């Protein structure tokens, strides 16, 4: 890898980092506006046009609040908790392919932080590290409600990661690779009639989506924070920007989960008729081959972000529709419904592959 490529890759990583933060910032705004609209209200509209400066006002509020440490709390771990949650949330977006390649003469830039052949495994690893952030924060607070929330978060994430992994295996059986870029490219091949994975894996997608809700601690699986029983769960004792980091990492996790679902099941940066559009650009508009590919890549990135935003909207839509599960219901759903379903899905996929129905 040349120094120039490294530089480009660094730029891409910076852009992804900035974008994750920006999207998480505006998720807070979107959450409030969507909540308001679903409840026949108008939501924040005072700060700036349509309230678009609301996240800035929130940030100022968060930063200027009192930094509070509960008595008897383990100070180092108390600070480490939100940091870990934030770091893991930001790290997981590194392997997601946000677009195909851009070609400038000899330089080829892939719109992806890093390409590794175990991409999906990396995402899983980082996401399961994220639960340590909640666990450490809840434990360090020296508060029984925080600890209960943290314990719930840990057991819930572990339970649902199993079903999530099993649902993923069915996808991997078809793709034969863990690289997210490969999985994306396989979902659309030039000259062939290819479908996105959602068509081949509807059951797997439902399981994966449900688990993604549980992994990001979103309603109806937001038992770790559960205001009604646990005050605020693991972040009961947190104030100021440390609380902000927890809330922020949740939104970044939603962004990443949406991106992963788009890549795995909805074709990532592919969009319908991209090859036809490319041919048309080259033959009818006289655009160069590289330039045509760059245009398609740009449109593909836009398409991927469209899919991601649709998923983020879905996350919020569900939050303001469904009530919270009870803890035993949550565990029964995870262990005795989703895991058997996921195993059944693996068998089904295996059978269909064996008989050549799907590949």
């Amino acid at each position, binding site marked *: 890898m040349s120094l120039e490529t490294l530089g480009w890759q660094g730029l891409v990583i910076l852009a992804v980092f900035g974008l994750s933060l920006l999207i998480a910032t505006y998720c807070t705004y979107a959450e409030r506006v969507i909540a308001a609209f*679903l409840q*026949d209200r*108008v939501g924040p509209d005072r700060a700036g046009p349509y309230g678009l400066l609301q996240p800035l006002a929130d940030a100022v509020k968060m930063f200027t609040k009192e930094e509070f440490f509960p008595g008897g709390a383990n100070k180092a771990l108390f600070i480490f908790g939100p940091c870990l949650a934030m770091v893991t949330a930001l790290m997981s977006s590194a392997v997601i392919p946000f677009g195909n390649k851009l070609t400038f003469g000899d330089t080829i830039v892939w719109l992806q932080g890093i390409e590794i052949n175990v991409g999906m495994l990396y995402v899983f690893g980082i996401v399961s590290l994220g639960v340590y952030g909640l666990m450490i924060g809840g434990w360090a607070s020296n508060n029984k409600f925080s600890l209960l929330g943290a314990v719930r978060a840990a057991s819930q994430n572990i339970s649902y990661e199993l079903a999530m992994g099993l649902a993923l295996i069915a996808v991997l059986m078809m793709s034969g690779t863990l690289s997210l870029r490969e999985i994306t490219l396989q979902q659309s091949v030039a000259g062939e009639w290819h479908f996105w994975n959602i068509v081949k894996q509807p059951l797997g997608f*439902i399981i994966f989506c449900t688990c993604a809700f549980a992994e990001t601690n979103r309603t109806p699986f937001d038992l770790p924070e559960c205001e009604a029983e646990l005050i605020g769960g693991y972040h009961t004792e947190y104030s100021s920007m440390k609380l902000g980091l927890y809330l922020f990492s949740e939104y970044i996790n939603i962004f990443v989960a949406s991106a992963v679902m788009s890549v795995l099941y909805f074709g990532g940066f592919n969009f319908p008729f991209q090859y036809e559009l490319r041919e048309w650009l080259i033959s009818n508009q006289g655009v160069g081959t590289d330039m045509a590919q760059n245009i398609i890549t740009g449109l593909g990135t836009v398409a991927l972000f469209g899919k991601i935003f649709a998923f983020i909207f879905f996350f919020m*839509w569900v939050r303001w529709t469904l009530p919270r599960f009870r803890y035993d219901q949550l565990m029964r759903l995870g262990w005795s419904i989703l895991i058997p379903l996921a195993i059944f899905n693996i068998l089904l996929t295996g059978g269909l592959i064996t008989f050549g129905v799907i590949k």
Partner: protein
Amino acid sequence: MQSLSNRAKQVEKKPFTLAERAYLPAIFQGLSITMRHFFMKKATIRYPEETRPFSPVFRGLHVLKRDEAGRERCTACGLCAVACPAEAITMVAGERKKGEENLYREEKYAISYEINMLRCIFCGLCEEACPKAAVYLQADKMAPPRYERDEFIYGKDRLVEPVSPDARSKRGIQLTDEQAVKLRAQLA
């Protein structure tokens, strides 16, 4: 057991059907309901910019009327203060001097006239009690919110209809008996 009212209903607890146990149909039903609300007309009234329409018989902020010649109608008879169930109205009566005929309609007038809007219950009895048709509750104006309690004591400067060259009551300050006597002495 025999029901006394004969209105008791037998409740049957049926086992869930497969569709009910699968959750998903119910979830999609709920999602469609919330999505309908997403596009509905919003109930919010953005207050300072938008206001609700007032009813024509709304009883809002008081006003002390002038007559056709621009003279104050109030003669400080005190009937409004007597009628007021909340004892929100106080006034100091004074005698009209020579040369003030263009300001006050009758020989007696109110040197100060104050309504405490925090006490007032906006019942409109003062309006009914007034023999000179001087005090009215406006149908299109509310007492606005303020930061201090004494700002809610409305004197003649804020009650009398506009064009008030001789507003003797200072804004929001109620006259003590001593001050009232002094004021009357000055005027005499």
